[in-house]
């Protein structure tokens, strides 16, 4: 970059502004894409709500950002020193102006807090009594899933675990987790060793799985499809591989999958909570 002349300098600043705007444009192009963990391409009620509140904060934030950044550039151009001996009037402040720019952001933020609280209390409510229950346990380095209300041929809850045999670097290959679409699901989240964090971003944001604590929350999946998630809380060596894949089924398909799991031949006897699970679906 030519950096010695004032014109080149302002050109550089304009270039930087364009760069920034270009990056913002990229942000929007990215939001539309159908990538596996895109927090904008939501597929469930909780994620819809979370996206709504994010956008509600993001748009004003982008507005303020453009106002401030453009303001900086304009101020620098307009009030650039033109003569070496130039001395401006010594203005020490303007109380009225300062009160205004203290009070207005405060009011704006309080207004923003209202929808935030209403969504927070909805996302944070207890699951409904008729919700479909799944128990999830995080451990180094995989997720275990247990269906307490879906029993196999021996009358035990169906469990799913990864297959440690084929995966690199400590983690287990994720099982395909079937969940019913279109109804509320109650998740009971636990951790066995260290803290993990359960996130399937297109359905719901993360919840921590903390040893000694049981976290209960609801999620909902709009329609059948495949969804991806992975552990968000750093949990050691195999953290990067602690993924999960969810297959959301309509009622018929889900019942079919349940019946298949109930077949005695399916070696469905994996022990819940075992650190060395023995079977994959």
């Amino acid at each position, binding site marked *: 970059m030519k950096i010695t002349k004032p014109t080149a300098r302002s050109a550089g600043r304009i270039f930087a502004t364009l760069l920034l705007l270009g990056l913002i444009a990229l942000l929007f192009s990215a939001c539309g894409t159908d990538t596996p963990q895109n927090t904008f391409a939501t597929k469930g009620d909780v994620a819809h709500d979370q996206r709504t509140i994010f956008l509600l904060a993001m748009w004003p934030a982008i507005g303020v950002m453009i106002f401030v950044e453009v303001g900086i550039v304009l101020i620098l151009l307009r009030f650039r020193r033109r003569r070496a001996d130039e001395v401006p009037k010594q203005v020490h402040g303007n109380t009225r102006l300062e009160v205004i720019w203290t009070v207005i952001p405060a009011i704006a*933020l309080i207004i923003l807090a209202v929808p935030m609280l209403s969504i927070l209390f909805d996302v944070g409510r207890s699951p409904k009594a008729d919700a479909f229950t799944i128990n999830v346990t995080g451990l180094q380095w995989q997720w275990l899933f247990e269906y307490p209300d879906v029993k196999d041929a021996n009358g035990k809850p169906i469990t799913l675990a990864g297959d440690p045999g084929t995966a690199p670097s400590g983690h287990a290959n994720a099982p395909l987790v079937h969940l019913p679409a279109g109804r509320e699901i109650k998740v009971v989240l636990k951790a066995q060793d260290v*803290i993990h964090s359960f996130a399937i971003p297109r359905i719901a944001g993360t919840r921590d799985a903390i040893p000694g604590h049981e976290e209960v929350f609801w999620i909902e999946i709009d329609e059948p499809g495949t969804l991806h998630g992975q552990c968000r809380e750093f949990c050691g060596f195999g*953290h990067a591989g602690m993924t999960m894949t969810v297959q959301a089924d309509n009622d018929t398909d889900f019942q079919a999958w349940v019946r298949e799991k109930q077949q005695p031949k399916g070696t469905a006897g994996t022990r819940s909570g075992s650190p060395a699970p023995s079977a994959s679906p």
Partner: protein
Amino acid sequence: MATVIGQRQPTMAEALRAARGSSYEGIWSWLTTVDHKRIGVLYGASAFFFFLLGGIEALLIRVQLIVPNSGIIDADAYNRLFTMHGTTMIFLVVMPMSSAFFNLLIPLQIGARDVAFPRLHAFSYWVFLAGGIFLNISFFTGNIFQGELGAPGAGWFGYQTLASKQFSPDHGVDFWLFGLQILGVASLASGFNFIVTVLNMRAPGMTLFRMPLFAWMTLVTSFLLIFAMPVIAVALFELMFDRLFDANFFNPVAGGNPLLWQHMFWLFGHPEVYILILPAMGIVSEVLPTFARKPLFGYPFVVFSGIAIGFMSWGVWVHHMYTTGLGTVANAAFGISTIMIGVPTGVKIFNWLGTLWGGSISLKTPLLFAVGFVAMFTIGGLSGVTHSMVPSDYQQQDTYYVVAHFHYVLFGGAIFGLFSGIYYWFPKFSDKLLGEGLGQLHFWLMFIGFNLTFFPMHISGLLGMPRRIYTYSGDQGWDLWNLMSSIGAFVIATSILVFIINVIVSLRSARRAGPDPWDGRTLEWAIPSPPPPHNFDEIPHVHARDDFWHQKYTEDEKGQPVPVVAGGAVEEDQHAGDGHGIHMPSPSFFPLIAAIGFPIMATGMIYDYALVPVGVAVLFTGIYGWAFEPATEEAE
């Protein structure tokens, strides 16, 4: 003054006294210095060295993430690198670099000859250095020649139960916890020193509300330090008991609670964020008025918003823990407090813009970095507002969106602010201006590199990319953003090279900067560059805020500033006295000895308890000698 050879064998006391010396030359003079300016230089140089280390760690991280499924660095080394990167940048770079500015400037800005406790000052530096070296030595405790690093690998936040003995069995986390403990001692010493210095050592007429804003921010930061460091000290002691003595503070199996750690860590950690950013805010509040030739707009508002941030920073720690299941009401309460801390922060940004408005802005390097601070910190603050929205934070928690956010605050904010301060005050202490051409190149490379690295992280985060994963698969849509981030990291590295070249070239140049190269407003510009050991020949009498400006400019009847005619109060070097008859504290190496005790004790705790009493003995030898040594040796 290293030689103590005499005709007869000197006694121990005599030898120490002789070695103490009073000279300003040679390595001994640096090891024993109690001059706040030299300690400031030591702080700054050490922090810059650690900045390079932390930067190399960051580059290795970015090399590994440049493409999906890369295997350049394995998961184990990667975990240790990002742990050390975070720990280094926070505790060994931004904190001590801020401390360097406190040390260099506070006495000059408030018209004092020294800090309140000069030897405590030296002690705090040496303890910091000992802690920093101790922490980094951990790299070599693994089998490094086979590529096994020994550094801590449980994250800079050390979450339980991952950082327990059971799940992090090697000594890495032990080095981490004792290293931070040692650094905490340094921060406490420095915090107390600056509180007393700012409150008690101000020149006549320098009322609190005539202080430069940097001095205010130093005061607020120092209060935060003395209240925040004990919190993490307690947490680290509990972790020590858990790891070394099988205690169960955080062990859920035995009734402990891993969340207890998070509460204590973030109760420290959130004020810590402001410990990192307030000094840079102070720097920017000095640079903008000087380069706009206009006083800080709304000084009282900026001061009070800084104080407000200091108080409010204690009530927002749960926003690091929204997803831990503390309950909806707790999340709502802390969500609101977090939203509200945005208000005093916003006030500062508007006041900085108000300072520039109507000014005569000289677009020199210090100003560019200061404006870069305002521009980038604004983005970091706004992304902070988006995830103060609790439900929305569930989606961003532990993703790269958060990484983007706090780098906009701590790099785009703190580091840009600190570089602004370096360019601004470098001539005061070296009498050399840093080259303007290279400075501008440095700024633009860093500005572009910074945005290229960290802006795409907003996107990879919103696309669901978790933090702290050593690799990712190519089907997630994250590759482009990571490639951009990695390229940007190398642009930043290039800008740092430019800076280093600039420093070397400038120091060798023959051109002198003189006492007041920027048309400064505060007292430090009224004295020669570099300042004499005693700073002020005569303690100044302060009559106004921006006192030095008022010595140089008066106002005509229309309120337009005009330069004071001929000479005025601008003192030239020859006008200055030679400082005879002013007794400055004599050098002392007892602070250094005392500081050496800490890493010995810590090593003993980790490897062999027999070393612990040795460390204690060294520490007490230092303190004993220090206590009985007169602060000022009589002139002969």
